[in-house]
């Protein structure tokens, strides 16, 4: 009998990778415009690899594949992976399965930043960098930074509890400020509300390429931190006696996960549910080791969000549903099924 868990993990990871590929292919070939499926796949291969496959697509169809569908699918992969990986990391760092990537105030800070941009009319500006994205990013990081300062002021040991409580306080404060601004600028409510529901709206490859480098670096760092998260699971005292620098590890993981979340929020708004439920579902399906949870969350989060976005843009086509509505509408029942199945084992 092979006692080592690595073999099982490898087969799960291969399955996860296949799920992402299948979701991406499905999302690429389905859309409001009828384009031959083989042509979509051939064009995608031609664009993304050195290979050349002949296809009969028109220039317009090629443009739809390259400028609309592909960037949106890739953005879905990045945002889904980012939110799910950050959620898994937060759940490990805070030893709390109810933790999500917005725990330390990223959502409230990002929301305030985006609202400031909208009420000042920056949302209509054009240019290489979207002012709303920049404002949301700065707001999100400011909020986490403030949470950290308040948490450390209250407890020099930077315990998980003090940080969570600081996050609640800072998020409440930022939400109050955001609501105040929103109420004072009723004309912008629709724009703000749409941003809050999240979306993978792209204009070519700009958003995707902005998120790509941060997402790759942060996801790699977090995916190799699974063992550290497993050690943290035995509590600060035992983890310290096992040789882990608990404080330093917690700082590194929270900073990377927060940076990743803030970057995702900046380009996609607040997409609820993914960061909480995906790692939770992965834990129920594949066990409690973060060496499995983190990489599988990357795959499941990416595939799940790509499929949700497909539903969001096709169910009411040509209109679009907010993706946050779809993630909750399909994710919640699925999670209940998983929960019942796990409880019955």
């Amino acid at each position, binding site marked *: 009998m092979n006692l080592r868990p690595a073999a099982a993990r490898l087969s799960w990871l291969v399955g996860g990778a296949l799920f992402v590929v299948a979701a991406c292919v499905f999302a690429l070939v389905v859309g409001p415009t009828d384009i031959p499926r083989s042509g979509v796949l051939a064009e995608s291969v031609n664009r993304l690899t050195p290979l050349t496959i002949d296809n009969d697509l028109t220039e317009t169809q090629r443009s739809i594949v390259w400028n609309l569908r592909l960037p949106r699918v890739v953005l879905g992969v990045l945002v889904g992976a980012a939110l799910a990986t950050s959620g898994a990391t937060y759940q490990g760092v805070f030893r709390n399965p109810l933790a999500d990537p917005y725990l330390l105030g990223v959502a409230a800070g990002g929301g305030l930043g985006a609202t400031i941009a909208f009420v000042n009319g920056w949302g209509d500006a054009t240019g290489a960098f979207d002012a709303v994205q920049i404002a949301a990013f700065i707001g999100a990081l400011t909020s986490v930074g403030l949470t950290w300062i308040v948490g450390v002021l209250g407890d020099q040991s930077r315990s998980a509890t003090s940080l969570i409580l600081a996050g609640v306080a800072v998020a409440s404060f930022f939400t109050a400020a955001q609501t105040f601004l929103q109420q004072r600028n009723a004309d912008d409510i629709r724009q703000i509300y749409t941003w809050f529901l999240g979306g993978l709206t792209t204009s070519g490859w700009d958003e995707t390429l902005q998120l790509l480098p941060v997402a790759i670096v942060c996801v790699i760092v977090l995916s190799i931190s699974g063992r550290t998260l497993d050690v943290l699971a035995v509590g600060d005292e035992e983890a310290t006696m096992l040789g882990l620098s608990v404080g330093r590890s917690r700082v590194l993981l929270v900073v990377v996960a927060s940076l990743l979340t803030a970057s995702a929020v900046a380009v996609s708004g607040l997409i609820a549910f993914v960061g909480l439920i995906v790692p939770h579902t992965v834990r129920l399906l594949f066990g409690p*080791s973060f060496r499995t949870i983190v990489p599988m969350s990357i795959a499941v989060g990416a595939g799940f969000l790509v499929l949700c976005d497909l539903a969001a843009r096709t169910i009411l086509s040509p209109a679009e549903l907010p993706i946050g509505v779809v993630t909750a509408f399909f994710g919640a029942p699925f999670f209940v099924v998983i929960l019942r199945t796990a409880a019955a084992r």
Partner: protein
Amino acid sequence: MSRVTLENVGVSVKGTTLVEGVSLRVESGSWLSIIGPNGAGKSTLLRAVTGVAAFTGSVEVDGRPVADMTRRERAAAIAWVPQTPVIPPGMRVFDYLLLGRTAHLHPLATEGRSDLDLVESILEDLDLTTFARRQVSTLSGGERQRTVIGRALAQQSPVLLLDEPTTALDLGHQQDVLLLLRRLQQENGQTIISTMHDLTLAGQFADHLVLLAGGSIAAEGDATSVLTEDHIHNHYGARVRVTHEPDGVIVVPRTLTGLAQRETP
């Protein structure tokens, strides 16, 4: 093999002195058991040796102050088996033992073949191979304690600290765990420091006993010199009968009848 030396060790928490002026020398490959009534400072002293509790004085392993060691160096020198370890829900035995390799790996590295081989050999040595894929939380008390000791062995530390290693175990499992520790001491030459509540077992298995009372050493030496009726009465407030048998010093609580007989002039 490593020698542990404590010099005038004291621990205070928020102005309350828990341990004061403790000086000890634990020879390489020997087993010291710290006994004493509840609140005597046994666990606190052990936590000071691990470096988890802030202390005054000096604790050295092979002449090197623990306070000067990094966390990883300390974990490579001293392994700790806590009284009530935190068992992460759902964690499997193999993964739990792998946690013991933390001090030997870069923070972002993963275990290599040698680490996996070591864990497999420890599982075999502790008769845990059949439980490798079981969740730790589903094991019996004795199996779970062997698993926690297995994690400590995976640290490959020459010094093993155990806080009440036989608590909540039945008599058979208490003997199993203590025999295992004796084997590790004799075969691997590990230096063992444990706290114990069962005085008879402490006397039977440890080479040296320290009776702690009110945070200070009240008596130390071999079982015969420490486990006396007077010491136990004075520091535990218990009336016991101490007999010397071929199996060691036996401490038996007196029954009411026995107490009456003893106190009758």
